[in-house]
């Protein structure tokens, strides 16, 4: 388990990163290295050049852009987890980050690295899809962005060109004061890769009418996916049990997803558990709103 030999560079600017990538078509960016280093060691990845982006200051900032929170690609997961802006404006991300690896891996692992690595069971991509985050990318001095929902196209596969670098992620702040979130995942052991995961972000108006219900699942298919559930929910009289409408809508949305299976869990298990976790995530989110309203 020694990596094949490679060259290593540590540019100071994003443009320098892009020119390295342009000159080495098989180059790989290293951020926190929590996935890439084991892949290098097992020779599953064998780039000729590794481009370290750890010393580009602008990638390590969390910025408040009025209606959005912008997280630099190189922001460590542990930093995001302890950041007061994240806690205030992105409660779903804060919840999900506690499930990402262990404290030691979060100290190195980055928000951007997890997104471009695109593990189907990873938490941060699931949150990005749930919240419809924008992924901002630079490629040969040109910036463009993807909505997270378009970004993930397969297991460890994204729309990012090999010559491009993700530099920041833009999360829209909630527009309503009444926000509830829920995040649940199941793994064989604490902090293992999720066999199924669900995230919910719900906003309601002051009368308790749900205006925005965002629900997504991860871990059960090739990439995280939104579950479209179009159900009217009224919390003005407090929270009640999830209606059968919602349960049916979740099941119906899951029906259209191709579910994977492996030695750790069957497809039927993943589908059943994803439905349950989705219900729990929505339930948690609604409870939070109901509590705020009361």
């Amino acid at each position, binding site marked *: *388990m*020694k*990596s*094949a*030999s490679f060259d290593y560079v540590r540019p100071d600017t994003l443009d320098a990163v892009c020119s390295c990538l342009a000159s080495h078509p098989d180059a790989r960016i290293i951020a926190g290295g929590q996935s890439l280093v084991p892949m290098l060691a*097992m*020779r599953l990845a064998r780039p000729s050049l590794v481009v370290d982006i750890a010393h580009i200051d602008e990638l390590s900032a969390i910025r408040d852009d009025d209606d959005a929170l912008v997280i630099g690609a190189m922001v460590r997961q542990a930093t995001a987890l302890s950041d007061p802006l994240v806690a205030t404006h992105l409660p779903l991300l804060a919840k999900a980050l506690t499930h990402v690896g262990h404290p030691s891996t979060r100290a190195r692992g980055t928000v951007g690295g997890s997104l471009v690595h695109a593990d189907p069971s990873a938490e941060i991509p699931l949150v990005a899809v749930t919240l419809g985050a924008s992924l901002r990318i630079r490629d040969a001095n040109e910036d463009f962005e993807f909505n997270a929902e378009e970004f993930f196209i397969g297991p460890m596969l994204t729309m990012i060109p090999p010559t491009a670098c993700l530099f920041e992620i833009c999360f829209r702040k909630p527009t309503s004061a009444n926000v509830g979130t829920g995040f649940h995942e*199941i793994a*064989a*052991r*604490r*902090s*293992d*890769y999720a*066999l199924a995961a669900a995230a919910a972000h719900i906003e309601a108006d002051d009368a308790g009418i749900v205006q925005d219900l965002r629900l997504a699942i991860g871990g059960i298919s090739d990439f995280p996916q939104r579950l479209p559930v179009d159900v009217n929910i009224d919390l003005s009289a407090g929270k009640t049990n999830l209606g059968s409408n919602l349960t049916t809508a979740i099941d119906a949305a899951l029906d259209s997803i191709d579910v994977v299976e492996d*030695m*750790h*869990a*069957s497809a*039927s*298990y*993943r589908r*059943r*558990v994803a439905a*349950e976790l989705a219900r729990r995530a929505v339930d948690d989110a609604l409870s939070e709103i109901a509590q705020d309203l009361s």
Partner: protein
Amino acid sequence: MVHDMGSKPMRDKKYRFLSQPRRVVEDRRFVAGKGKYIADYDRADMAHVALMPCHLPAARIDAIDASAALDMLGVIDVVTGAELVAAIDPLMNGLDTPKVRRYPLAVGQVRYAGEWVCAVIAESRAIAEDAIEHIRLETTALPYVLDPEQALRDDSPLVHPDHNSNVLLDKKFVWGPVDDDFAAADHQLNFCVTWGRNSTVPIETFGVVAEWNAWEQMLDIRASVQMPKYADQIAHALGLAGNQVRVHYDIDVGGSYGVKRGIKHAVLIGYLARKLHRPVRLIEDRLENMRAGDAHGPERKFDVSVAFDKDGTVRSMKMRALDNAGAYAGRAPFQLGKPIGAIVGPYRIGSVAYQAISVTTNKAAQEAVRGFGQAPTNYALETAMDRVSAFLDMDRLALRQHNFIKTDEFPYLIPSGSTYDSGDYHTVIDKVMAAAEYPKLVATCNQLRKDGMMAGIGIATCLEPSGGNSSFEPLLNERNQTTTWMESCQINIDALGTVTARIHTTSSGQGHETLVSTVIGEILGIDPDSIRVVRPNSLESLPGNSPVGSRMAIMLGGAAARAAEKLKAKIIAIAAHHLQCDATRIDYQGGAMLSANGRHITWDDIIESAHRQIHQLPDGMDPGLASFDIMQVPTGGDLPKDGKVHMYPCYSFEFHLVLVAFDPIIGKPEIRSYTIGHDCGTVINPAIVSGMTYGGIAHGIGAALLEEFAYDESGQLMTQSFLDYLMPSSHEVPDIQLVKYCTPSPHTVFGQKGSGESGYLGAPAAISSAINHAVAGLDISFDKLPIRMSVISDKIAAATHHRSDSG
């Protein structure tokens, strides 16, 4: 005063150091990160080895072209199985199966996916791995077999065609009137359970460094090893004299519990060191270790029938144990033999029929694993007890208590020929039930069920045969006539009066230095912390058999005690000579010896006499203060007769009581309460025994729920790293309440029994029992370990669905 420990058992007196809560000597260096492991051993001109696997489960090797690799800068050599077969002898396997040959590298044929076909030696491990990518391996795929039942069939592919069968061992034993007991019993039931292929999986992989000194004609071996007769086997395979191989025992072993045997590695690296005249090092990487380190554990299918009466008396049992050995014999067949020594567990089962079958398949070979086959057998036995209880609608614990051997029935001869030494099973149960507050546990379980959870209470009782000898070898192979499995210890008191003990094995965390210093300190009456314990090399050692079969407290502790008693007798004789009294009148009190008339002689005076003043010694006494002891296993020494043999001297007892709960949809078992009662006789160091037990339970949780070396249908190992081979972490291991009890063994120096396998021997059975108790209302059961959460959920869903359909 203690002269004769046989006639005056030491356990009757209060111990000064033994059984006291004393610090573990080894912890100091381990906790500080100052252990000395094989990877810490460095040599300036050391060559490094990487191993090239073949990824087919069965293939003929047509050609290996290493020319491109050999052209690379830094590559020293590439060695194949064909080269080895001409230069060394096959590895020993202990069975009478001469056509099942095993070499460190595949010879002519690959027998499992990942098997090593050649070794690349280079200036660094990285270069060696680079070079592997330039070796061309030409193979022809052959048919393969993975399932042991299929391997038994006539039309199965043969793993070793020359052997003309996949059967390594098929022995049938009938102990007692089995047919009569079955005919007379009120009921019988049959079931099948399967123990999945797990192992002890140390964080430190196997590693070995070999150095050949041509001018001394000496092969020096340093290895992360735990193995009896390691030096002998290396010498045998390499065609060297016994005194040309020197294994250094002062290497700390970073985890083992049986699997760190590495004999194929050592023979390969020893061969390379001689050939290349350079120090050569192999440290397995995780892939080499998991795929082809040949360190998997038992994979065993049990077909069991039990005959029992209405009142719960279990009269007789028939057990067919089919073990999937993998591609080579390894230690797999013998792991079917050891459980014969406790085949009825703690129960008065009057007769047993046992069929032990070991078959080769195209999977990696097995190594010895904690308990040496006892944990799987206990799982089958305890399942039988639960099934009988369910059949009779009888309380599971009451059924066990009804069948227990009673404390006044010891020594108790079991049908297969072993005699249990001592025990008080009923008292341990009572203590655990009280400590766990059983009625509260039941109430909690019921409340969980009311709240919509699945919840169950699991129980398991079992024995830990300890003081390991190898009686199962002659039992399974008549040509093997081994009747001793000795252990030894040497002690020297130097001219400054300090004590040094020599022990003759590596240590893989069992605390041997603590054990030996405590025992010697107790007998000589001096502070154990002042006693140095060293581990010299094999040529400076007396015979021993390393820590296997839960034996070191009994055997190394025994040899150390006996050697210390010899020294003490000499000290007393010197004192008596000085004080001109009879030795029986000497009151031995550690640092000073007092005689009856009030005169005394100091420790320093004794040392001075022994080391400098032979004129002060009794006539004919040799100078110096040194002793040694080579100890035979107590109660051992007989060859089998009529398919029966007495195996181990001591039998520790454990009782597990657990509460497990899980959501019916998620299916993830959470252990809400865990209490274990443990009786291993006199405890030498309480912290070591507790640590063994906690670790054993963690290991058992892995076997029950998570750990498996699983192969897919194409013969590929799916669990090649810790990504997929899931070991319990601290999150998955609950708080454990340990209830200690002591029934001394009559056969050992202090009444001690073994504890190295404790916890692991019963935990899988207990957790399986709890999960099955939780789902009993659905008329489903889980009969294969590990019980994965997805399987739990899927089965509950199917049962619930079935019910709603039919209801």
